[in-house]
C-alpha cells in the first residue's frame, strides 16, 4: 500500500451526490402529489396517505443508518477483512443519524393530522381511543408526548454511540494508537445491546402501532433483521459503485465481496426465518387479536404481494447467493444487492399499507395496490435520494479506508485465498 495514499472519495461521488438530491426532490414532490391525489381518490384521506407513504421512506432510510451502526459494532467485535474494508461505508451511514432525526419531524407532525375520522396512527385519535377498551389500556404507552420522547431517546442513544465509534475511528487514522482498536471493540458489545433494545421499541412505535390492536413478540426482530439487511445491501451497492473508480478499484478484493455476499445470504435467510415464524404461529393459532394482520394481507390481490415477497425477498436471492462465483463478482453481487433494496421497500409497503383499514373498515382490495405502491415507492425514492445526498456528503469527509488500522495493509492485499 502506498503509505501516502489517502483513499479519498472519487469525484464521481460528488457528481452523483448532486444527481441524488435532484432525483430525490423530484420523486419527493411526485410522491406527495401522488399520495394526496390517490389517497383522496381511494378515500383514505389525502394528507394521511401522504404521511403513510412518507413513513415508508423514513423507516427505510433510518433503518439503513441504524442497521449500519449494528454492522459497524459487529465488525469491531469480530474483526476480519470484510469489517475493515466496509467500515468507512457503514460509518458514513451512521453519521446520517442527525439527518434521520430531521426526517423524523414529519412523522411527529403526522400525529396531529386527522382527516375525516382517519389518522395515520389510529391511537392518536382521542375519539377512537375513548370508545375502545384496548386502546385505552395502551394509552400509557401509546400517547403523543411519550411517543415523541421515546423517538428522541432512540435517536440520542444511536447518535451518542455512533459518534463515539466515528470519533475513535478518525482518531485512529491520525494517531494509529493501538488502544483505540480495543476501545472500539469493547464499546461494541454495548452498542449491539442498546441498538437491539431501542430498535425493537422503535419498531413497535413506528411500525407495529400502525395497527394498534395487533401485537407480535417477534416484530422487533423482524424489523431489526430487515434494517440489517437494508444496510448491508446498501453498503454492498456503494462498494460495487466505488470499485469502478480510483482509488478503490485496487482496494476491494473478490474475497471482501465474497464475505459480504455470505453475510447477505445469512441475513436473507434470517429475515425469512423471523417472518415465517410470525406467519406460521399466527396462522396456526388463528386468534381474533392476531390473525387480522394476515387477513388484511391475504385477500383482495394482496396475497400476490405476499407471494412475491416469498419469491423475490427470499427464494430468488437465496438461490442466487448460493453461487460462490456470484458472490465474488461485484457486478453480479450488485444486482442481488439492488434487488434486496427494492424488495425491502416492497416489504415495507406490505407491512405498512394495509394499516389503512386497521380500524376494521372495508376489506383491502386490488385497487389499493396501485394507490399504495405508487406513492410509497415514489416517496421511498424521494426520501432515499435526499438521504443519499447527505450520505455521499458524509462519505467525502473521510478516507474510504481506516488508514490507522494496523491490519489494513493485509486486509486489502490481493491476498492468497485461504479456502
Amino acid at each position, binding site marked *: 500500500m502506498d503509505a501516502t495514499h489517502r483513499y479519498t472519495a472519487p469525484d464521481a461521488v460528488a457528481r452523483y451526490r448532486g444527481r441524488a438530491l435532484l432525483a430525490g426532490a423530484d420523486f419527493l414532490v411526485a410522491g406527495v402529489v401522488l399520495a394526496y391525489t390517490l389517497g383522496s381518490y381511494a378515500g383514505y384521506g389525502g394528507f394521511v396517505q401522504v404521511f403513510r407513504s412518507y413513513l415508508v421512506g423514513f423507516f427505510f432510510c433510518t433503518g439503513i443508518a441504524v442497521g449500519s451502526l449494528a454492522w459497524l459494532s459487529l465488525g469491531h467485535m*469480530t474483526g476480519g477483512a470484510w469489517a475493515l474494508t466496509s467500515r468507512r461505508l457503514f460509518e458514513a451511514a451512521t453519521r446520517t443519524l442527525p439527518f434521520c432525526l430531521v426526517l423524523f419531524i414529519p412523522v411527529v407532525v403526522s400525529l396531529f393530522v386527522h382527516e375525516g375520522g382517519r389518522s395515520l396512527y389510529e391511537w392518536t385519535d382521542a375519539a377512537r381511543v375513548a370508545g375502545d377498551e384496548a386502546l385505552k389500556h*395502551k394509552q400509557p404507552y401509546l400517547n403523543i408526548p411519550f411517543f415523541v420522547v421515546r423517538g428522541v431517546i432512540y435517536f440520542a442513544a444511536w447518535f451518542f454511540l455512533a459518534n463515539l465509534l466515528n470519533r475513535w475511528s478518525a482518531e485512529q487514522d491520525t494517531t494509529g494508537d493501538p488502544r483505540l482498536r480495543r476501545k472500539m471493540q469493547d464499546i461494541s458489545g454495548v452498542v449491539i445491546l442498546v441498538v437491539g433494545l431501542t430498535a425493537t421499541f422503535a419498531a413497535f412505535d413506528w411500525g407495529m402501532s400502525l395497527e394498534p390492536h395487533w401485537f407480535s413478540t417477534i416484530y422487533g426482530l423482524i424489523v431489526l433483521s430487515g434494517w440489517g439487511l437494508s444496510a448491508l445491501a446498501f453498503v454492498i451497492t456503494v462498494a460495487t459503485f466505488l470499485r469502478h473508480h480510483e482509488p478503490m478499484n485496487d482496494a476491494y478484493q473478490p474475497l471482501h465481496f465474497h464475505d459480504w455476499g455470505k453475510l447477505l445470504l445469512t441475513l436473507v435467510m434470517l429475515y425469512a426465518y423471523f417472518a415465517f*415464524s410470525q406467519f406460521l404461529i399466527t396462522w396456526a393459532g388463528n386468534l381474533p387479536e392476531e390473525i387480522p394482520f394476515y387477513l388484511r394481507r391475504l385477500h383482495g390481490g394482496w396475497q400476490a404481494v405476499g407471494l412475491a415477497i416469498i419469491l423475490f425477498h427470499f427464494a430468488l436471492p437465496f438461490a442466487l447467493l448460493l453461487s460462490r462465483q456470484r458472490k465474488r463478482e461485484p457486478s453480479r453481487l450488485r444486482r442481488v444487492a439492488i434487488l434486496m433494496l427494492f424488495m425491502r421497500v416492497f416489504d415495507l409497503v406490505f407491512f405498512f399499507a394495509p394499516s389503512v383499514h386497521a380500524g376494521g373498515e372495508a376489506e383491502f382490495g386490488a385497487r389499493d395496490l396501485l394507490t399504495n405502491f405508487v406513492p410509497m415507492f415514489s416517496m421511498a425514492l424521494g426520501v432515499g435520494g435526499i438521504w443519499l445526498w447527505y450520505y455521499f456528503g458524509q462519505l467525502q469527509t473521510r478516507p474510504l479506508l481506516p488508514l490507522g488500522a494496523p491490519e489494513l495493509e493485509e486486509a486489502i492485499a490481493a491476498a492468497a485465498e485461504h479456502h
Partner: protein
Amino acid sequence: MERFDDPYDDTRIHVTPAVIEPGHTFDSVTDKISALVLRKRTPLGWWVGLAASFVLTNMMLGTIIYLVFTGIGIWGNNQPVGWAFDIINFVWWIGIGHAGTLISAILLLLRQQWRTSINRFAEAMTLFAVACAGLFPLLHTGRPWLAYWLFPYPNTMGIQPQFRSPLMWDVFAVSTYATVSALFWYTGLVPDLATLRDRARSKFGRVVFGMMSLGWRGSARHWARYEVVYLLLAGISTPLVLSVHTIVSFDFAIGIIPGWHTPIFPPYFVAGAIYAGFAMVLTLIIPLRKFYGLEDFITDRHLRNAGKVMLATGLLVAYGYMSEAFIAWYSANKYEQFMMLNRFVGPYAFYYWSLITCNVIVPQLIWIRRVRHSHVMLFVVAMFVNVGMWLERFIIIPISLHRDFLPSSWGMYAPTIFDFTMFFGTIGFFFFLMFLFIRFLPVISIFEMRTMVPEAQIKEEA
C-alpha cells in the same frame, strides 16, 4: 489463518492465536491424546466417576421398568398439567446438544480455529444428550413399544400420523438430528481410530480399532474424499442447529395457551438451546482439562470464547423474556396479562425469579474481564445457566398450564419421586456415556490438532 481476532493482543497481530500452547510437535500431540486411550492404567478417579454414574443409570433403568409396568401415572403430570418433567427434560437435553452441532458445523464453516480441540468432545455431548432427550417423549407415549406408530409407514390400521401436528415434525426433526450428528461424529473419528489402531499395543485393541477405522490408510485419496464428506456433513448439520429447536418451540407456540403461543418462540428457543449447550460445554471441559492435563490443547482462549458465546446467547434469551413481558401487557389481552402476572407473583413466582437470577443476572458477570479469565468463575456461571435453562422450561411448560382460561380447571403441579429418579437418572446415564467415551475414544481430534502445531504452518513462510 486467522490473524485479527485475538482481542487481548493489540500489538502482535501476526501471531497465531493461542489455540494450542507453544512447544508442541506432531508427535507430542499424537502421543498426548492417544495416551489417554491406550495407556494401561486407568486412573482411580475415572473408576469412581464411572461407578457413581452407573448407579444413577441403574436408577433410571429401574424407573423405566417400573414405569413401563405401571404406566405414566407414576409421574406427577395429570390434569390440568399434562406436560411437565417429561417435556421439560426433553427440551433441556435437546437444547444442550445444540452447542455440539454449532461448534462442529457452524464454527467449521466460519473457519474458527478455536473449535478444533473441543469439537469432538462437544459432538459426543450432543449425541449423549439427544439419547437422553429421546427417552422422555418415547416413554411419555405410555406404550413405547408402539412408538413406531409415529412414523408414516403403510399399515393395516388405515391411519396416518397427523402431519399438521408439530409433535409429528418433532419425530422427524429429532431423528434426523440424531442420525446426522452420529454420522458427523463418527466420520470425524475415522482418521483418529486408524491412529489408535496403529499405536495400540494389544491385539484386541488393534482388531477393534482396526474394524472401527473402516480400512483407513491415510492415503491422499482418502483425505481428499474425507474433506469433501466432512464439509458436506457440516453443511447438512448447519440448518439443524436452527431447525430442531425451532420445531421444538412449535410444540408449544402452535397451541393457543398463553405463555406458549407467541411468535418469538423459535429464535428464542434456538438462542436458549445454544446458551444451555455452551454452559454444559464449560461445565464439562473445565474439570476435564484439569484432571487430564489437557490445558495445552483446551486453552484459556477456548474457555473465554465459550463464555462470550454464552453471554451473547444469554442476552438474546433475556431479550425474549423482555419482549414476552412487554407484549403481554401491550396485548390488552387479560389472559396474556394474567399469565405474566402469575409468573411474577403466582404460586411458582420463586422459580420465575430464580430463573431470572440464573439466566439473566448472574451471567452478566461475564462482561467483567476477570470473570471471563477465571475458570472457577466461568464454571460457577455455567452451573447457574444449567439450572436456569432447566427452570426456563419449567416456567414455560407446567406454569402456563396450571392456570388456564377457566379458574374452575386450575390446579397445582408437583413432581413425584419418580420424576426426579428419571431426571437424575438420565444425568447419570449422560455421564456414564461420557466416562466411557473419555476412556475409549480420543476426546480431542488428534489429526486436526496436528494441523495447529507450528510444523503445520510452514507453508505460510514459504
